[in-house]
């Protein structure tokens, strides 16, 4: 998005544009590029899962891939929650797959096709906040359903000395209430920061190539391009790590609700 003046606009890639404008009872409920990419993500997950669920006795490569991801989440749940963790595998698996595929979709070079703009679903706080509320709400519902008011003993760890009883529950309550914010912010900021960084580097490359002085491409553009390849690989790693961290923290929080540390 480098314009003639050499000014780059790193935030332009996060613009939400309506594709099919819809207005319902005074509210703007247009079908946007964000919704389109969510559907693309859903379709990708659907194809991936259906291709691997043929239940053959001797699994092929595709089935092994699906079973690998499923086994990965299964392992994580049973090691952090215990035997009861199996019940929450579908939730955490869906969260993990959605975040992972949405992050990777945002990294795909759709911009090669003229007129098509890539979009990262998880680079918007509204989306990640809903995901975090899903995770946090599950913890609240499971905890209160299973333990009733005994759930609030979560805020008083074992072995708290009596003279700290006024302080520890406050700190625990605060760290409990901040969980959805940290979950949502981490994913949103990691994706936003990565994409802004890549756009800025891409601006260096393009503006350097268009510069009047002949020495600029060799000194600025080529090193920026090499750096950008490295940053892109790092971003792919961050995409996977963020999805893993979200799933792992959700598993730990559900463990708190199920087992009441």
């Amino acid at each position, binding site marked *: 998005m480098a314009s003639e003046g050499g000014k780059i606009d790193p*935030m332009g890639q996060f613009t939400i544009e309506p594709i099919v404008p819809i207005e319902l009872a005074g509210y703007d409920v247009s079908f946007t590029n964000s919704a389109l990419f969510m559907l693309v993500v859903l379709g990708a997950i659907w194809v991936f899962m259906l291709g691997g669920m043929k239940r053959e006795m001797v699994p092929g490569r595709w089935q092994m891939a699906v079973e690998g991801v499923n086994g990965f989440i299964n392992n*994580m749940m049973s*090691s*952090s929650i215990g035997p009861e963790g199996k019940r929450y595998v579908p939730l955490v698996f869906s969260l993990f797959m959605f975040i992972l595929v949405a992050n990777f979709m945002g990294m795909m070079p759709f911009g090669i096709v003229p007129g098509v703009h890539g979009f990262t679903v998880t680079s918007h706080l509204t989306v990640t906040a809903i995901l975090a509320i899903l995770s946090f709400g599950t913890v609240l519902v499971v905890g209160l359903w299973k333990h009733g008011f005994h759930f609030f003993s979560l805020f008083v760890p074992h072995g708290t000395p009596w003279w700290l009883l006024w302080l520890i529950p406050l700190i625990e309550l605060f760290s409990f209430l901040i969980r959805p914010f*940290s979950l949502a*912010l*981490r994913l949103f*900021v*990691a994706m*936003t*920061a990565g994409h802004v960084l890549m756009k800025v580097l891409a601006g260096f490359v393009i503006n350097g190539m268009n510069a009047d002085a002949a020495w600029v491409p060799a000194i600025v553009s080529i090193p920026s391009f090499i750096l950008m390849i490295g940053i892109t690989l790092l971003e792919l790693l961050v995409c996977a*790590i963020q999805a*893993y*961290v979200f799933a*792992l*923290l959700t598993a*730990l929080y559900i463990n708190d609700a199920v087992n009441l540390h």
Partner: protein
Amino acid sequence: MDAEAAKLIGAGLAAIGAGIAAGGVGNVFGSFLQGALRNPAAADSQQGRLFIGFAAAELLGLLAFVVAMILIFVA
């Protein structure tokens, strides 16, 4: 001082936070590697804790980035 200049200086100062968080992330992975090389058999079982530590250290760096972005684009 011009208000615009103050904003940009503040955003630059926020970048210090990102740098310090980079030190924190490096410390997490460095300490893990130190422990893992001494006892490789126990390393795999501690990978979950490694990423929890990484996530906690990284979040604070990301918050510094949010402060910078708010100063530049919102405030």
